């Protein structure tokens, strides 16, 4: 019983960090283990923004790792040297915890090669790379993560988020949602449900060369969508295909640099409530989350089974 949420503001930049924080805090009861945000800021004209982690958080609010500071330093240096080797020039770097970093870098080479090599560094995982996408996830509820990473002032157009109740894999950052669709810039996914043909699909995708960092069934949706988009299939078509090819009960939300989409399985077994207006679309597992950003009465609806919706920023 995880909680998922997404919000997209049409043609304007707002404090999407605050919007997502409020919605996810409203879904805390659906998943207390970890919270993740994937938010889309103003796209960079030049270069990429990358979020990555080099270790795991030990426990909620501890903000520390089992690895020694020397190990962390070595791993960070290894990432820096790989970036340098590929000709990427880091223009800005910051970190909110000893194990999570945000880099802005100029790069003209092959993103897949770069990302793949960075992830060869021990315990290192790229959470996201994109022009606008920044993906942040950690243990604890929405407010804990938001305060830890200073997300309450994140300006952008849209975002998706997830509060996780771990059922099929561990309570750690790598199994937390959202998932970035490696190696495609600016594509991310959150999911509520269970996929029953996970291993079959994973083997097929691994044979195509995709990497999986966790054993979480939700990761496959991100990779699946990425694979479809790599073959030139539109997001909406890829999502329709997923309803037949992914088996199980699920509702998921996917975001790209300027789109937000949701899909619900044939059984309609997982909840989703949508509010649409001229300026904004908000969707969440429960209306109570949407009401955190709209205190007044609003008209909402449930999408039906096998329904796919895509909205433009």
């Amino acid at each position: 019983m995880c909680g998922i949420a997404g919000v997209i503001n049409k043609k304007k930049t707002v404090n999407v960090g605050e919007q997502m924080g409020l919605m996810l805090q409203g879904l805390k009861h659906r998943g207390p283990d970890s919270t993740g945000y994937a938010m889309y800021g103003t796209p960079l004209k030049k270069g990429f923004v990358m979020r990555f982690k080099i270790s795991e958080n030990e426990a909620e609010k501890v903000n520390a790792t089992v690895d020694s500071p020397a190990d962390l330093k070595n791993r960070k240096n290894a990432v820096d040297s790989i970036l340098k080797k590929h000709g990427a020039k880091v223009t800005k770097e910051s970190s909110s915890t000893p194990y999570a970093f945000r880099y802005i870098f100029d790069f003209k080479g092959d993103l897949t090669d770069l990302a793949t090599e960075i992830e060869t560094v021990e315990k290192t995982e790229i959470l996201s790379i994109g022009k606008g996408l920044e993906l942040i996830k950690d243990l604890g509820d929405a407010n804990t993560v938001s305060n830890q990473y200073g997300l309450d002032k994140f300006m952008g157009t849209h975002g998706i988020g997830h509060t996780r109740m771990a059922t099929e894999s561990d309570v750690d950052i790598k199994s937390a949602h959202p998932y970035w669709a490696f190696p495609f810039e600016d594509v991310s996914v959150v999911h509520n449900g269970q996929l029953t043909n996970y291993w079959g699909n994973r083997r097929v995708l691994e044979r195509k060369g995709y990497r999986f960092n966790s054993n979480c069934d939700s990761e496959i949706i991100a990779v699946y969508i990425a694979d479809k988009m790599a073959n030139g299939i539109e997001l909406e078509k890829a999502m329709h295909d997923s309803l037949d090819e992914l088996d199980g009960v699920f509702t998921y939300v996917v975001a790209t640099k300027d789109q937000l989409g949701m899909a619900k399985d044939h059984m309609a077994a997982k909840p989703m409530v949508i509010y649409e207006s001229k300026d904004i679309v908000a969707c969440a597992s429960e209306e109570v989350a949407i009401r955190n950003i709209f205190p007044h009465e609003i008209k909402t609806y449930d999408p039906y089974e096998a329904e796919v919706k895509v909205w433009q920023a």
Partner: protein
Amino acid sequence: MAGITKRTTAFDDENLSGRSQKLYFEVTEEENYTYYGNHEVDFNKRTSIDCEGIDAHVLNQKIRDAIRKGYGSIVIKNPGAKHSLGVGILNKLNLIFEGSLGYFGIGCIDGPTVRVNGRVGWSCAENMMSGKVVVENNAGSCFGAALRGGDLIVKGDAGARTGIDMKGGTILIGGNAGAYTGFMMQRGRIIVCGDVNANMGDSMYDGIIFVGGEPHSLGTDCVPGEMNEHEVRWLEQKIKNAEIDCKVPASKFKKYVAGRMLWNYDNLEPAEKKGILG
């Protein structure tokens, strides 16, 4: 129509089919109609409760306290789509929610007349025994799950598995209904003025589904039935009473009932069971 011609009590017009049993209460047996702790309320005595900043169990307790004081009309302000509001009211009462409810709203009620000026989330009026509920906007999935009696009305659309496992009463939907509507229903009636999505009436044992639009597909054990005049009149009246603007005249509604392929399931040979399960 044996149930109509043999009419002897107010409860006798329930035209049941199949193996459903008709059980009648004697009106003189007062214990069948009253509960221990049931309170006399005055519908002209009104009060309102603000739900802002309080939890569901606090609100539900406040409603019960108000009933105890004899208030017959209670308005709930700012429900804010919270879960489990108005649950377990076993009293006659006029209850009005000035906004939307979250999940499991007004579950396990017996007697009240409820109006929701908003939307309801999953499993609204689950296990309702009697009374009337009117939802002005849309309803989420499992609307009226395991409904036992009373009238449950939504003026907008309802989600998937509406009336799952229902055992009596009437569900009336002004708009469309989702997949698996009437899933495993055992008694009662569902009226959908609009269309119904896939697998309508899957594994239904008994009961009737009336559809004004088109069902996308029928589930196992759901078959078309034949409307009779009494049902047309009943439909007309129900839709009129619910103040629903239904574009389809009652005579054009389609009726669906249980095919009862699973009815004698226990008496089947193993090979036959396998055939049914496919």
